[in-house]
């Protein structure tokens, strides 16, 4: 009997703890791994008393699924640009109340009202960057100017492509002079053939492994995101990065609030906090991607502006495209053609 009483008391204690915990203000953040200087959250907690619950995802697809199946679990999410388009069309996002985000003024005008959110109602840019070629100057003598170098037999078995449908098909499309967002059957088929022809000289299709393998000198050329390129270049000074003249993909990782968010105002507070120039600078210097925050860039000075990988010339940006969401029927075609590339012998 004594045991039962103590057990009951224990359970009562547990119950008592739950509301005590729930009473604290929280914001549930769903982000990529290692995509935020964690110190920033500590400062935010000290300033506002709002506790930040951190959760992580590794792919956009995984993230969208989680946001759908667990409504209310996430207050602030960091999807890729084309996913924002899809989430808006599926009514998954809440309109941000920009009265609560005064620091939005610091965002570069060129990145406001982006294609994926034309009226800029649902998203605030967090980081941005390009897709390009990371190359080892010891193995590549010529200047890297065209995507064509990825098809050059000279570099057989020394090329890493991306194991990512949109990026790799996009590069082939761009090389052929088409749009990265092509929905045209003939163009997609041409890009597929191009990639199948390239497959014998490709060393491997990687995503996360590319940067470390390039640092280790495992290949001469690699298709890569600018952020990963900077990471690799810091560890191996023989590496360099270029965005080919045919143009490439420019991407933004925005912050959005799911429609089901339970702590929308706290999420807005956090967005505002992350747009503060000093904080944006701190994050940018940690992640080393391109910052959308004009005043943060001013704070960083020449370290940032002189770095062509992180701060590409305007004419490079001019040649680049955003990814658009591909509607379902065309996505079936994309999947199908990508499957043909991956399964080609």
């Amino acid at each position: 009997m004594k045991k039962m009483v103590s057990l009951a008391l224990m359970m009562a204690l547990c119950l008592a703890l739950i509301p005590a915990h729930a009473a604290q203000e929280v914001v549930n953040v769903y982000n990529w791994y290692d995509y935020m200087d964690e110190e920033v959250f500590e400062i935010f907690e000290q300033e506002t008393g709002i506790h930040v619950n951190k959760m992580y995802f590794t792919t956009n697809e995984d993230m969208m699924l989680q946001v759908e199946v667990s409504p209310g679990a996430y207050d602030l999410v960091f999807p890729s640009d084309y996913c924002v388009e899809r989430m808006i069309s599926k009514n998954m996002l809440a309109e941000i109340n920009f009265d609560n985000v005064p620091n939005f003024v610091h965002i570069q005008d060129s990145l406001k009202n982006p294609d994926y959110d034309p009226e800029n109602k649902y998203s605030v840019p967090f980081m941005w960057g390009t897709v390009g070629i990371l190359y080892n100057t010891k193995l590549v003598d010529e200047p890297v100017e065209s995507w064509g170098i990825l098809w050059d037999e000279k570099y057989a078995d020394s090329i890493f492509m991306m194991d990512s449908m949109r990026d790799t098909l996009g590069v082939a499309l761009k090389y052929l002079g088409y749009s990265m967002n092509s929905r045209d059957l003939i163009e997609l088929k041409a890009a597929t053939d191009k990639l199948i022809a390239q497959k014998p000289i490709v060393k491997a299709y990687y995503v996360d492994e590319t940067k470390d393998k390039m640092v280790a000198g495992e290949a001469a050329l690699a298709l890569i995101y600018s952020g990963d390129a900077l990471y690799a270049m810091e560890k191996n000074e023989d590496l360099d990065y270029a965005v080919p003249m045919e143009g490439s993909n420019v991407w933004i990782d925005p912050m959005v609030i799911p429609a089901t968010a339970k702590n929308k105002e706290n999420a807005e507070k956090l967005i505002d906090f992350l747009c503060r120039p000093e904080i944006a600078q701190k994050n940018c210097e940690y992640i080393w991607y391109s910052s959308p925050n004009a005043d943060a860039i001013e704070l960083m000075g020449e370290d940032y502006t002189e770095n062509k990988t992180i701060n590409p010339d305007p004419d490079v940006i001019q040649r680049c495209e955003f990814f658009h969401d591909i509607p379902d029927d065309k996505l079936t075609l994309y999947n199908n053609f990508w499957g043909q590339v991956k399964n080609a012998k």
Partner: protein
Amino acid sequence: MTDFQVPSWGYWVMGVGFIVFIALLVAYIHKNRGFKRPFFASPYVLWLIVFTVLPCLLVCYFSFTDPAGNFTLDNFKNFWDSNYNARKAIDPAELDTYLSMGLTLNDLGLARNSINIDTLVFSLWMAFLCTVICLLLGYPAAHIMADRDFKLGPTLVILFIVPMWMNFLLRTIAMMSLLEDNGLINTILEWVGIGRQKLLNNTAAVQVGMIYNFLPFMVFPIYNVLNKMDYKLSEAAMDLGCDKWHTFYKVTLPLSVPGIVSGITMVFMPAVTTFYISRLLGGGKVQLFGDLIEAKFLSTSVTEWNVGSALSLLMMILILASLGLLRKADPKGEGGGIV
């Protein structure tokens, strides 16, 4: 992506279900004045229903429906011809325009394509090869470890188990850095004078990774059977004039069949459904059936879940059939396997 979420009332149902469960439990204890034996099986039954039966039913449901939930056999037709859904998705008017321009389905990359079947056959071949090599490597190893005169046997057993304390992904990633062009093995090869070899990003690397990962699953069932075997039997055979080879062939081998069957099952099943090892060691260039299914489920396209379910269902049927065949070889399940 298919919408499948727990509706808000689902939590109420769960809550009420829990209360009903407690009430039933109390009533049960009251009625029986304690627990009876079948009662203790209930957690397992519940576990099996939630994590085995329900998922299987879901796979069946998805494989016979389209994203809207209507009955269809398209997913299986798509297995036979991997371009089937793509041809259906394209606007017929657009397709007609191209066809009237003199282009064929083949020019458009939409003719019948046997990717799925080819990949399945390739996966089965790889799994078969892996099982055979594991058996050839594993049987002698198990035999040596179970040998009563071999003092180092127990140490060998430990050495086989130790790597399994580590997650197989970590071990595979470690293999990746061993096999790469500037990796340890190639450095040694160059130093010895053989020169660098291409060890990574090909089918052989995937096969080596599979064998490395699954070998213990072959060794231990055989070791268990051999270890438990009455050594007096082989002594008797020797007494009666059998030489060493005949003792092994006539006595030990037949008695170890249950272990072999169990080992084959334990290796073949994970080998045929492998998917991550091939990506890491094959550099994304070697696709197994598991990779194909994974890609379907990670896609954002609505039809892909259904197609992936059909592929999984076919795979399950295939495995069940092969288990049925193996069961014939070890009807009593002496190998302690799952057959």
